[in-house]
């Protein structure tokens, strides 16, 4: 018997009445569940020093000026901990932060009511298993522009713009950091002490990030390398609780 025929028979057996009952039950479960849950919002806010970062605006930087056209990065595997034990873990946890899309900067989690935590852990970038597991959807869809095409792997962090400090003709800089294969694995773990509040705001200091680069000598990195790993570590130090 083919799968198709089998499905047809089961469909007939089930009928519409049962279906309605099941849908009703599911809805009821959902309502019951939501009463014991708490919504936690994690917000990533990009700043340039003390100013909110706005794409295509000009900022004073070192002895010159700087402007950003793109800032995108992956946050994955979010976990809430208390006394170093995981108390809540988001499943299928992959988020693409995009400075041009406000919606991508807030993530909401539903955790059990009354759950206390003291620490928020997440990865800055995409783990190696995910990097080798083929095509994926949602924030991991290659149409998001965060997948290298000529060599497999996700770009963990992308920053692009112009600065008077760059030594190329068009004054452009472009950093695409990533890489999952030994010895160029760029993935970083970030761990922040937090209070059990309903909204956690994480400050991303892009000025500090730019200070880790030396724009006058290197204005682009476009593939996995030891330099990409070093910079990824330094960038991971630019996330802090507001």
């Amino acid at each position, binding site marked *: 018997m083919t799968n198709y025929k089998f499905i047809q028979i089961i469909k007939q057996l089930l009928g519409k009445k049962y279906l309605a009952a099941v849908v009703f039950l599911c809805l009821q479960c959902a309502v019951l569940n939501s009463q014991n849950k708490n919504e936690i919002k994690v917000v990533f806010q990009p700043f340039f020093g003390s100013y909110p970062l706005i794409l295509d605006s000009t900022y004073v930087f070192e002895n010159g000026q700087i402007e950003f056209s793109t800032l995108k990065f992956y946050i994955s595997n979010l976990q809430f901990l208390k006394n170093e034990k995981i108390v809540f873990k988001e499943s299928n946890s992959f988020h693409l932060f995009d400075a041009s899309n406000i919606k991508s900067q807030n993530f909401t989690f539903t955790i059990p009511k009354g759950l206390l935590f003291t620490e928020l852990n997440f990865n800055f970038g995409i783990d190696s298993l995910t990097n080798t597991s083929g*095509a994926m959807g949602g924030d991991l869809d290659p149409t998001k522009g965060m997948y290298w095409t000529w060599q*497999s792997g996700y770009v963990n962090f992308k920053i692009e713009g112009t600065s008077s400090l760059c030594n190329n003709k068009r004054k452009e800089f472009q950093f695409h950091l990533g890489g999952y*294969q030994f010895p160029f694995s760029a993935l970083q773990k970030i761990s922040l002490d937090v209070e059990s509040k309903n909204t956690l705001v994480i400050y991303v200091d892009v000025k500090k990030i730019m200070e880790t680069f030396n724009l006058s000598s290197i204005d682009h990195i476009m593939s996995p390398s030891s330099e990409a790993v070093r910079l990824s570590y330094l960038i991971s130090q630019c996330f802090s609780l507001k």
Partner: protein
Amino acid sequence: MKVLKYIFFIVISLSFAQHDDLFITPKNWPKPVYNFTNNALTKSKVELGRVLFYDPILSKDNTISCASCHSPFSAFTHIDHALSHGIHDSIGARNSPALINLAWQKTFMWDGAINNLDMQALAPITHKAEMANDIKSLVQKLNTIKLYKHLFKDAFGDSIATGEKTLKAISQFLLTLISSNAKYDRVMKKQEIFTSQEINGYRLFQKHCNTCHKEPLFTTNDFANNGLSIDTLLNDYGRFIITKNPSDSLKFKIPTLRNIEFTFPYMHDGRFKKLSQVMTHYTSQIQSSKTLASELKQKITLTSNEKVDIIAFLITLSDREFVFDKRFADPYIKYN
């Protein structure tokens, strides 16, 4: 109610279950490397992949399809060019490989730059010298075409194309390209017999070639330096480009030898047109270097008859059924 839940579960899992007739692991072959649990083959997804493979819509100006460089009649390689345009900007051009038994392959490209078959199509779609498109614009284009709305709906139950679905469908078609019915296979199944020349070729092959071009896939999936001299115009260091590890310098993917009769020219840069030139390479042109494979450090000595015998054996790897298989041919589906 519990029973119902289970029945639902069964129905759901069955509707995603693989159609067994689309992918059969030939007898005595190893298990495929591709992880089908994330992308179980179905007839309509394979069909969508086939239409995409033959559709020039994949290129920016609608002129080049995958099949332009991977033609079925040459076991999915590029027949008329020694060198297809290279995938990388920084290094020279490369010969387009045959697409055979990809479900058993761990990495793709001559240097293993691609880690999963799903991600392979991104390279030609994006490359300036090839299709000069990008996956985002391609998906947007697909979403405006009636035919594709139908095909995506049939395949995924939703007419909206995404990058993930497009890539998975192309993979599905590529995974069905199995070649396992050459004379060699029929001899192994005791349905036919080798000529005495082929027997001698097979014996010599097992002695000199089988460590790398290992049966039954005729590759170990590994990388090796088989002693080709470096082309100073192309300066292609192979696997080293990816790992940046000096011990990988000049190593290239060991290609399958199935259908080798049809897949000329040979090697990563297509430098040899004929199998006789390949035999001359292995017997008298091996270039010594730090990373040269240990098997090839000692000179292989073969008489001219013995070389001809090995070639006679290699020709028993030709699978005409594969090359002319209607399921793999251009579906000639037109849209407007």
